[in-house]
């Protein structure tokens, strides 16, 4: 029983981390209909910035992540305006190709700049854990989980309570109508992409704090984000959190009761089952799967 509880706690925390990684990916896909294959590379870049801040200035990663977020917001905004905007109306294959190319350039760039060595942001507290009876709750992961939940609620507040957020949602729903209402779609898209990359940057700093990273890990973060976003569903800010928690739990429980090498297959199996039963994902909105851009 205690092993089951331990697996559950760990799975939930791991799920929070996955949600944090995937939330930006889901946002861009939901609003812009762009599957950003460079998302994982932005996560890793965020991790490097958090690591650099810690190495150079001794900045705690929970402060360093704001630097990551700021730098990556600017980078994301500019990337969208100058690059992705060129193909945002194009067929999905073109956006896939462009973001895939961007991923290659970023990963190789980081290989050259930082080498392929594995890095980790070392703090005194991230490896510690609290005891709840026989269950251990790791502090670093707990903080990352809290951050994921906080960011999800902030995003919900942003899109429901602010003009900027509402214009993001409006553009996501119907770009033509949003333009007619005076919303500058180009700016909104760039803003959305910037927010997504900023969140990727924060997730990267957390990944660096609780684990290790290297440029080569970018692809696996993109893949995981994809699974989480599809599972959770698009068009709902709670989607990534729901998807992340389910994947985290499935992997933890699967690892506990099945041979450990099955966990990835199990995650995809759950994805398939959810898509068969609920094609829009756990909390997604059907509209986003079928919309047409004008």
């Amino acid at each position: 029983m205690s092993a089951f509880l331990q697996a559950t706690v760990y799975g939930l925390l791991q799920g929070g981390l996955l949600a944090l990684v995937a939330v930006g990916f889901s946002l861009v896909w939901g609003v812009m209909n762009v599957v950003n294959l460079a998302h994982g590379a932005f996560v890793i870049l965020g991790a490097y910035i958090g690591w650099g801040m810690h190495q150079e200035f001794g900045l705690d990663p929970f402060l360093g992540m704001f630097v990551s977020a700021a730098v990556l917001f600017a980078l994301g905004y500019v990337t969208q305006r100058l690059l992705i905007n060129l193909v945002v109306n194009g067929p999905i294959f073109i956006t896939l190709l462009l973001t895939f190319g961007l991923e290659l350039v970023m990963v190789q760039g980081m290989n050259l700049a930082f080498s392929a060595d594995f890095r980790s942001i070392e703090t005194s507290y991230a490896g510690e854990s609290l005891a709840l009876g026989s269950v251990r709750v790791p502090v670093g992961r707990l903080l990352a989980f809290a951050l994921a939940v906080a960011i999800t609620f902030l995003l919900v507040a942003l899109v429901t309570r602010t003009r900027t957020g509402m214009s993001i949602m409006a553009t996501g729903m119907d770009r033509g109508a949003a333009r007619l209402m005076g919303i500058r779609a180009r700016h909104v898209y760039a803003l959305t992409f910037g927010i997504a990359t900023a969140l990727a940057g924060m997730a990267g700093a957390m990944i660096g704090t609780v684990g290790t990273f290297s440029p080569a890990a970018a692809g696996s973060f993109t893949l995981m984000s994809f699974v989480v976003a599809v599972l959770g569903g698009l068009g709902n800010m709670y989607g990534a959190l729901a998807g992340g928690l389910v994947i985290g739990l499935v992997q933890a429980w699967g690892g506990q009761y099945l041979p450990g090498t099955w966990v990835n297959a199990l995650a995809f199996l759950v994805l398939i089952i959810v898509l068969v039963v609920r094609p829009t994902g756990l909390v997604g909105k059907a509209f986003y799967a079928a919309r047409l851009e004008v």
Partner: protein
Amino acid sequence: MRSRRLALASVITASSLAMAGCGSKGEEQIEGAASSGRLAIGASLSLTGQLAREGLLTKEGYQLCQDKVNAKGGVDIGGKKARLDIQYQDDTSKPDVAAQLVDQFNDQGVKLILSSYGSANTEAQAAVVERNGQVMADSAGADNKIFSKGYERTFAVLSPATEYASSIVKAIAELATPKPRTIAFLSADDGFSKTVTQGGIKTAEGLGFTVLDSQFFPSGATDVSSALTRVKGKNPDVIIGSVHLVEGVAIIKQARELEVTPAAFGETVAPPTPDFAKSLGAQAENVLGSSQWTHVTAGQDKYFGTAKDYARDIQAKFGHAPEYHNAEATAACLSFALAAEKAGSSDADKVRDALSGLDTESFFGRIKFDATGQNIFKPMSVIQIQNGKAVTVWPKESAEAKMIWPGTKQ
């Protein structure tokens, strides 16, 4: 004007014929390597992708070998000096690309191949090498599986996979007091790591340890918490990970989070990598690991001197302390140089025969191959992280420090 065009056309035709000739007469080209003063060797390397880090270290090892051998005028082939000319290609860490590149080298007449990094790449390459009648010096493919297929043209300078965890078990059996009783193996699920685990289990059982059920996780996993939770209840005295760096770091980090505290952790290839101690800081202390080579490995040769000389050369040329990936790459290249000298020829078949009979001491230890092409004659070293540095603790002859036991604060 017309005559000028005609001349241009004939030049183009002549040069394309000459180029085509080069391709089809590759054999003759390589035969003539000694007389041309050049010994062409092909190396497909993982310079990008998942194995970029190890790929670069391998390249450095090959590069240093070429520089040192050429600094002495090259390899003496039948009284004539031939300079090493290693040609590099990037296989992007993918086995199928690594195999294709070996084919490409063959098309260019390059018959001597230095392997890529890792067992998966090397296994793919070995099949092509065999088919093409090339010969490969394997610097980093340790999985015994590669050598169980009856191949006759692949020779690994490094100790086989079965020795990786096995040597840690032997070191613990010999040096640990009080002697632990139970061992749990946590293993990545790739072919190489599984072979490592099987070798470790066999040795552990032979030495009288109780071996708990092994736990497997996907290769490259950053979350190994399930495996740790499963062994936690059984309180093993020792946890040995058959892992790469990523999983190795994850085991130590998450064991602390989950409060799994055996008397010691052993983790094959992760601890000898400097990134291990850098990523883990104090948590890395006293973790045991196994290494193909350390700077105190016994033996010397005419090109590189002793292991200490080699360490100094790597530091001077590349500005970092040597890793065993450097050394095994250099040793593979060295085995070609020595075999070509012994054969008195650069012909692939003759070099192959010379390699199979090679028996020499080197900075890398003894290089000698059994009938399957594995170097089972060189012991591995066991290292322990002490004060942030990997120090050799076993075998006793080359130990730099005593093994600290128990390795964790239980």
